[in-house]
Each structure stands twice: as C-alpha cells, then as structure tokens.
C-alpha cells in the first residue's frame, strides 16, 4: 500500500451542490474587499443621495410641512421621470467610482500571482470563475443603483397611489433595465481590465481612464471632426441616451439610441473577448 494511502484520508463529508460551488469566489472576495475602511466609508456615502431622494419624495407629498416652514418653492417639488433619471445618472456615476475601487481586486491579483491554474484545477469552469467574480461586483453595484432606485419608486407609489403607478410603470422598468445594463457593463469592463492589467492600481486607473478619458476623447472627436458620433466613446453619455429612451424623453438625441445600444453591445463583446483571451488555466512564460 502506498504511503499516502496509509496516511491520507479523503474527505467524505457533505459536498456543496455543483451549481452553487462558484459562490465561494464572491464570498471570499467580499471578505478581502471589505478589509478596506475607505471602501466601507465610500459605500456608506453612496446611500446619502438615495436617502436625500427619499426625503424629497416624502416632502413632495407632505407640502403642509413645507408650508408650515414658510417654504416658497413647494411647486417645484415634482417626482417624475426626470427625478428618477437624475437619480440613475448620479448613482450611475458613483457606480463608476465604486467599480474603479473594487474592480481591480477581482482578477488582477489572481493573474499577478499565477493563481488562475490553481482555480481551474478545481471543479471550476472559466465561465463560473468569471460569473463568481462578477457576481460580487454586480451585487455591490446593485445595492447602490437599481435596488435603492426601485425602493424610491415603491415609496413614491405608496404615497402617490395606484393611478400614478399605472401611468408611470415605465419608470420602474427604466430604473431596473437601465441600471442593470449599466452595472453589467461596468462589471465586464472591470473584469476585462483587471484580467489584462496585473498591477491592480494601474487597473483602477485604466477603469477611470475608460470613462473619463473616453468622455474627453469623445468630446474632442466631436469638436475636431464636427460629428456627434464621438459621444459613443463616452459610455456615460451612451447610457444617458438609453435612459432617455427608457424614461421616454422627447428631446431629440444627438445620435440614434439604437447606436447607443450597439455601442454597449460592442463594448460588452470586446470585454468578453478580452476575458476569454486572458482567463485561461495556464500561464504564458516569456
């Protein structure tokens, strides 16, 4: 009998179901991410605006309080599609920053430490690995974007009544679909850059650069080449166009909304391609 057979006893306890095994990835990554006090503080700060919005909705439905306080501009307190659109734009911007802070810790350390082969020795597929890592960021982004957005919508519904809800149900869909699409795009960009840039600080910089430098480059393209299609390089503007469609804005968009959807699809496809090229169970030694 081989020595190891005499000394080694295989684990024979209960196993986690195969379908949910990948959830170990977000669980362990969450613990790592939350070690940062700054990140905890930042996530808390992300709820200030939704809290302010909730207060705004409450006041808009309780004008008597404002009148008692001699507030003159009560007529401007309107909770409509624009109100929720601004909410989406603001929380969407915070989501970009959260992505830049959290995203680089997802794949970059595994690539830098040649840990990917270790993952794939386990019963993990590449898709499960990506899904596992992505679910952490997607969860964190959802908590500050569409979840509070829908809660605000529910508050407004409860205060304004069913008639308002029937008339404005598109807002709920707009919040959910728009912000979910945005969160998924952010996750894909973060994962792709984190997989290609081993230095997580540089990966964080690259994520910010994609959004800010992309916006600037798009604006420069618009100015220099006298076009509007540079806006498609600015992902914030792209999602803004999609929000304008989802929130039924009548203003003519600078570029057709279909192009914005195409731009997001191209962005997602490029990110997936980058991930497929990089997240592999072997390392390339140069």
């Amino acid at each position, binding site marked *: 009998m081989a020595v190891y057979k005499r000394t080694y006893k295989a684990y024979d306890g209960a196993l986690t179901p195969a379908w949910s095994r990948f959830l170990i990835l977000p669980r362990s990554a969450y613990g790592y991410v939350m070690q940062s006090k700054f990140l905890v503080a930042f996530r808390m700060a992300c709820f200030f605006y939704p809290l302010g919005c909730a207060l705004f909705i409450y006041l808009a439905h309780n004008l008597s309080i404002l009148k008692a306080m001699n507030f003159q501009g009560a007529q401007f307190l309107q909770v409509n599609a624009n109100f929720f659109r601004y909410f989406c734009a603001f929380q969407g*911007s915070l989501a970009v920053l959260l992505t830049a802070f959290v995203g680089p810790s997802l794949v970059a350390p595994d690539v830098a430490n040649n840990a990917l082969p270790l993952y794939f020795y386990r019963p993990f597929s590449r898709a499960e690995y990506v899904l596992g890592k992505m679910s952490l960021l997607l969860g964190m982004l959802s908590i500050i974007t569409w979840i509070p957005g829908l809660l605000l919508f529910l508050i407004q519904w409860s205060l304004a009544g069913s008639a308002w809800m029937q008339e404005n149900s598109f807002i709920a869909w707009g919040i959910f679909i728009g912000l979910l699409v945005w969160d998924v795009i952010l996750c894909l960009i973060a994962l792709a850059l984190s997989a290609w840039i081993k230095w997580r600080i540089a990966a964080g910089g690259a994520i910010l650069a994609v959004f800010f*430098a992309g916006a*600037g*480059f798009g*604006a420069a393209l618009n*100015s*220099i080449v*006298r076009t509007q299609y540079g806006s498609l390089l600015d992902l914030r*503007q792209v999602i803004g166009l999609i929000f304008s469609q989802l929130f039924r804005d009548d203003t003519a968009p600078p570029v057709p909304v279909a192009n914005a959807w195409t731009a997001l699809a191209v962005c997602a496809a490029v990110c997936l391609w980058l991930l497929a090229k990089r997240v592999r169970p072997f390392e390339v030694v140069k």
Partner: protein
Amino acid sequence: MTKLWLAQVASVMRLELKKSFFARRGLWIYLLAFGPALLYLIHAIDVTRDHEHRQALLKSHPVETSTLQLIEPRMPEEKVLALVGEPYQRDTFRFGRRQLATFTRLHYTDGDSDYSIGIVNGVVARIDRQDRCNVEKDSAIFATVFQFFYLRLAVFFGCVGIFMNLFRGEMLDKSLHFYLLAPMRREVLLAGKYFAGLFAAVVIFTLGTALQIAALSWHFEPGQVAAYMHATGWSDIASYLGVTALACAGYGSIFLAAGLVFKNPIIPATAVMLWEGINLFLPAALKKISVIYYLQALCPTVAAPESDINPLLRLLISSAEPPAAWLALTGLAVVTLIVLAVAGLRARQLEINYGTE
C-alpha cells in the same frame, strides 16, 4: 557636495528615462498624448479632400460667390436657376399625408463654401452656408479641446501613469531597494526621479501639442498660416507648449507625492481629478490650491465649455477666474514646490515593504 548630488541626479535620470519612455506598461500614455493629433490629422485629410472635391465641382458647375449671395428667401426656384444655373446636386423630398408637398435642396459651391438652398413649394425657404474651416474657428476648437481634454484628461492621466510609476511601480516590481541602498540622500533620489518623469512627460506631451498644432494647420493655405503666425501664432504656440510643460510639472509633483504617500494612489488621483473639476465652485483661497486654476490663466484663448456636454464631463470642465500670468506662474511654482517638499519628507521615511503591496 552639490556636484555629487548633481551627478547622482543625473545617474538616476539615466536609469529612469529609459523606463519612462519605453516601458510597455506606459504605451497607453502615447495614445493619450498623440490621439488628438491623430484626430486633427484625420480632420485635415478630410478637409483637404473635401476642398479638392469642391474645386472639381466648381469646374463642372462654375458659379461666382457674388452671384450665390444674390439668392434671397422667397425667391422662385426658376429665378434661382436662371441666376446660378443648375446645381451640382439636387435632393427632393416629399412629405405630407399624400406626399403632395415637396422639399427640394439645391447644392452649389464656390470652391470654398457649400450653399444649400431649400425650396418649398417652388420658392426659397432657407439658405444654409457651410464655410470651409478657417484659422480663427479652428483655433477656438483647438483651445476647447486643449483645455478640456488635453490638459484635464490626457496630461492628467499621462502624469498619473508616468509619475506614480516612479516609486509605487518600483515597489510593485520589488526593485526600489536598488536605489535605497546607494549612498544617496532620499531627496536627491526624489529629485532624480522627478526630473526624469518630468523630462519624459514634457517631451511626450509637448510633442503631442506640437503635432496637434501642425496637423491642425496642415490643411490651410500657406498664406493663411503665415498671416496667423505673423499675428499671434508664435506666441500662442509658445503658450500652449509652455502650459503643457507646466501641467506636467504641476500634476507630476502631485502624483509623485501620491505614489509615495498612498498604497493605492488611484484614490488620491480620483480625489485630485474631482478637486480640479470642482475648482469653479471653490472659495478663492482654495481655488489657488489647484493646478488647473493657474494653467487656464496661461492659455492664450479662454475656451467656453460646450453646452451639451454630459453632467460627468461638465464636472470636469468648470472654469476658474484667471489670475495674472506672473501670478499664475508663481502660484504654480509654489504649489509644485510645496507638494515636492511634502514628497521629500515622505521619501525620508520611505521603507521597503514589498510584501504588503
């Protein structure tokens, strides 16, 4: 002693320059620096081809500028055709429920400008003129792109890449001890690295600015360019190049310090970017603790932000009340020196702790 320090600064620079210019991880900086120049080049090629096309159209459909200017609103279509002849292109659109109403566009060119005459129900409804690019218009566009994209984003992120790499990058590569074991004051090391980064940033970004200007002026007639140069051209170019170099010095010092003080310099970089962005809304005393406040004052043209820019970018493009040029230069130098002094103090306390990176 000063001679030794200078020799040591030169030695550090020799080692760092290669890294700053040719590091693979820094290739994206060239994209930021030369991307706008590429856009200007594309524009120049487009304008040149467009001009050649118009000249060809003029030959086949000759028309005088003075004659085109005689066309007025509500003029019958027949009279227009009698005046300037057949257009080189005619577009007809039908609209209305039964498509009975028609809208016609007649296209003419005098070789420089395009004229589009809109005819509704047989009479001139509107006249659109698209002029060829001129130096003044393009200069204004350049000023906007330079201040709102090149300075605030390209140079900003470029300096993040170059200067943060000097210390933090070496920590990550586990090679910083090479310098710390040499008989060299930490301040001398800091100076050597800063000047190396500054040299690289200035060369890359001023070259980028120069290429943008060259590409911008490429499609103009030599006479137009000469006239512009004779007027304010040279001083404008010198200002833009100087502002670019000063931006590298200012942002460079900040990101060098950030790379020394913070383990994750992305957080301070984001904070600096937002700080620079909200400059307009800051009280006068706080405004002066920023780089963009002084840089904008030194730009030859005050650029206005575009009105349709998105909220995120709007945050970045707020402008500040400009100080006098001498004050701007002094202020920028003071901000840079204070930040470098802080970095020097931090460098003295610098320790090797690669394991926690």
